[in-house]
């Protein structure tokens, strides 16, 4: 009985195993299927799959504030002008422009051979419709980029006038950005508040579909021949299709390139950069982004941090070099100024100026009357010395880890850091319930500081004045900076502002963000614009 039973079970086990093998056989089949599919995609050489770390919120250029949206819609929309790496401007959809004597009126002449992807004609009416669209429901960055914009006037079919209420030097820089890319007025009208899901522009790629959280598919605009002067390509794109896959999980995203299932992936984690550089099939590109470095902004309104001495003590106690080296393993550059090094007016003299000095930090706090209690935390009048450190979630670029290290470092001088990591940072910011907030922004003009520092740009008024600064002197400097047309004078103004920010411990710069892309070596011609965003118009895929 026992023996027979064993035999029977052996038999059934054998059957199970055979079934398993069969299944595994299917598996191999399947594998061949995939690899031949790969060969096909590599052979047709005209489809680029690019893995994004986060999803755009909207593809309406006038309504999004996200860098990731810009990466996608830049391919759909063209701009009036093109900003070069040296900061100067060249024609794009506009063939030329004239600034009035008082600096308040810009007259653009437009190209006459451009059509939108839906067949509508590109002309002055279309440009005006875009500005009206931005002003009626504009969210995101577009309104800020237009500064003191007052109105747009159609002079004739291919001439448009932009009228400002005061001189605004950063206007051209704004107009060159994808956030002021030109949409088809017909599409804006047709799709209404769903336009962000059905964008139509004049760019090298047409929008095909967007499956939320999965992929955004664009295809070549065959009629395209009005590319920016920075591009080598003069005709339609070399790529037939451009597919953006949304893959939030880092290992999966990078794995898609390593396995050859995708051709490129953005935001390579620092610990993987050197490993990928050694992979002979792959290449890692790094591009420094322009705008503000990731910096910790001090809320200068709340006690006791409204005292510059208290803020300075904190600055002296934070060892930025250690933070940057520990977390980014030498792949990120340490920041010295709130502005990034590629920016007009970046103050080189700030480099290596700030060094940690715990003794001095302690001395400052002693002088302010904060005495260490039994638990090592300083106290004054029965109150503990606490910093409320606010950080957005998820842990983008290890920013939450920065907060954790700062927490440890400040403990040494007897400051308790209460860390709040949340996706909803708007509520505490609106209510002023924070002492430190970390942030970085992207823009190619130093006027970015206006939104960060001017007294009328508090968060509740649509600005990003995290420091809650209201200093008439700074307001005046920012005003001069935005209206001054002599580049040398502009530089001097922004130097002053940067120095003020460091000397008064308004912001502590931490790192300059490098936008990193890992891509197959078969992808050639991938370039980055002034903002550090990828450009796909010149890309070719070679075997």
């Amino acid at each position: 009985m026992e023996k027979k039973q064993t035999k029977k079970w052996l038999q059934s086990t054998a059957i199970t195993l055979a079934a398993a093998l069969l299944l595994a056989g299917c598996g191999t089949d399947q594998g061949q299927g995939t690899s031949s599919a790969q060969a096909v995609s590599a052979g047709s050489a005209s489809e680029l799959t690019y893995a994004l770390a986060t999803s755009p919120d909207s593809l309406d250029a006038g309504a999004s504030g996200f860098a990731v949206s810009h990466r996608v819609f830049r391919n759909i929309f063209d701009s009036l002008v093109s900003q070069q790496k040296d900061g100067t401007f060249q024609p794009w959809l506009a063939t030329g422009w004239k600034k009035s004597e008082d600096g308040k009126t810009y007259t653009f002449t437009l190209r006459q051979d451009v059509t939108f992807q839906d067949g509508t004609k590109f002309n002055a009416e279309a440009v005006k419709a875009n500005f009206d669209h931005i002003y009626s429901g504009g969210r995101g960055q577009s309104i800020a980029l237009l500064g003191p914009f007052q109105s747009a006037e159609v002079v004739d079919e291919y001439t448009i006038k932009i009228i400002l209420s005061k001189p605004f030097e950063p206007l051209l820089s704004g107009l060159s950005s994808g956030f002021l890319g030109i949409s088809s007025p017909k599409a804006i009208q047709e799709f209404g508040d769903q336009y962000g899901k059905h964008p139509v522009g004049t760019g090298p790629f047409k929008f095909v579909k967007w499956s939320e959280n999965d992929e955004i598919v664009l295809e070549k605009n065959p009629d395209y021949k009005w590319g920016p002067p920075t591009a080598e390509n003069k005709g339609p794109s070399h790529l037939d299709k451009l597919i953006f896959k949304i893959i939030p999980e880092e290992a999966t995203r990078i794995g898609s390139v390593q396995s050859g299932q995708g051709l490129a992936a953005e935001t390579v984690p620092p610990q993987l950069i050197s490993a990928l550089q050694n992979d002979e099939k792959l290449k890692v590109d790094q591009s420094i982004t322009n705008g503000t470095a990731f910096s910790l902004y001090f809320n200068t309104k709340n006690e006791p941090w409204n005292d510059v001495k208290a803020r300075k003590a904190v600055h002296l106690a934070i060892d930025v070099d250690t933070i940057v080296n520990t977390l980014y393993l030498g792949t990120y550059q340490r920041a010295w100024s709130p502005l990034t090094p590629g920016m007009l007016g970046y103050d080189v003299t700030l480099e290596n100026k700030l060094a940690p000095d715990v003794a001095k930090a302690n001395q400052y706090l002693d002088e302010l009357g904060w005495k260490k209690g039994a638990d090592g935390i300083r106290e004054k009048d029965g109150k503990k010395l606490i910093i409320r450190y606010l950080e957005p979630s998820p842990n983008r670029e290890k920013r939450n880890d920065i907060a954790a290290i700062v927490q440890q470092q400040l403990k040494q001088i007897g400051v308790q850091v209460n860390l709040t990591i949340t996706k909803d940072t708007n509520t505490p910011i609106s209510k002023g319930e924070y002492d430190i907030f970390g942030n970085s922004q992207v823009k190619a003009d130093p006027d970015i500081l206006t939104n960060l520092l001017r007294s009328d740009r508090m968060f509740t008024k649509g600005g990003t004045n995290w420091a809650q600064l209201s200093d008439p002197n700074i307001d005046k400097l920012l005003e001069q900076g935005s209206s001054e047309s002599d580049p040398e004078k502009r530089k001097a103004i922004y130097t002053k502002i940067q120095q003020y920010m460091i000397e008064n411990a308004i912001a502590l710069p931490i790192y300059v963000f490098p936008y990193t892309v890992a891509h197959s070596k078969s992808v050639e011609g991938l370039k980055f614009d002034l903002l550090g965003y990828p450009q796909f118009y010149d890309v070719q895929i070679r075997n």
Partner: protein
Amino acid sequence: MTGTIATRLLTAALVVIGSSMLVFVIMYVLPGDPVLQMLDGNATSPEAIEQVRKQLGLDQPFYVQFLQYFLHLLQGDFGISRIDSSPVLAKILEHVPATLALTLVSATVSILVGTILGVLSAIHRNGFIDMLARFVGLFGISMPTFWTGILLLLLFSIQLGLLPIAGSTGWKSLVLPGITLGLVGAGLIVRMVRNTMLEVISEPYIVTLRAKGLAEQAVMYRHALRNALIPALTVIGVMIGELLSGTVVVETVFARQGIGRILADAIMAKDLPVVQGVVFFTAIIYVLVNFLVDISYSFVDPRIRRSQ
């Protein structure tokens, strides 16, 4: 039987309404102001903030808000997402198929692997197969899906290049996420089936059947397994619920579409209409599955059928 079904449907409705209400309460009391979050600092004045609050009906007392929400729901109006102002129903319908497919595949993996290993394990008690099955069971229960998912990706997608690494198109994209999530349920079922099989095998009626000379396989599969399956069915019902919640992680790791992922995003952003919509849908699925499980008892166990 009809009576049972009527009672069941009534309980089902109560469960759906109850869970909607619970979520409404939780989202209501959670810290953070949805209006401030929506405006993203674009409000020009406190009056403007109040204006938006009024538009969304958020100035109304709690019970009015809930009633209004529920009345709209009954009319098939799930509202508009506060993040991207797309209709919630369309959003859910776009994501539901991917999640259902994933849940179905993982449930199949769980049930197949779980039952087969559970039975083999009981029959070969303390042998090699038993050890192996128990290891798989323990692995399934204790490994975070996040971890299992990445391990499988490393091996099958990156090293061997057999399966797609991400996305939600084609049946191949379901294999790894299905196994990842399925292993959790398999772990539960292996243990359940093994234990009940062991109990059943030592029951006197099995001894009788063997004594009568019935073939061992018939004893095991026709009689023992059938009785061992009843408790396992209950586990399967509960498991489907777990699978639905497990999709949040698995959908993120494998970059799949799905209601789990939009739910997580919506909770973070306090996008109440989306959270409500997804919970409503999930509750319906959950209730449906449990209903099916209850019905299937009577097919496995004739006593239940007769008593009804």
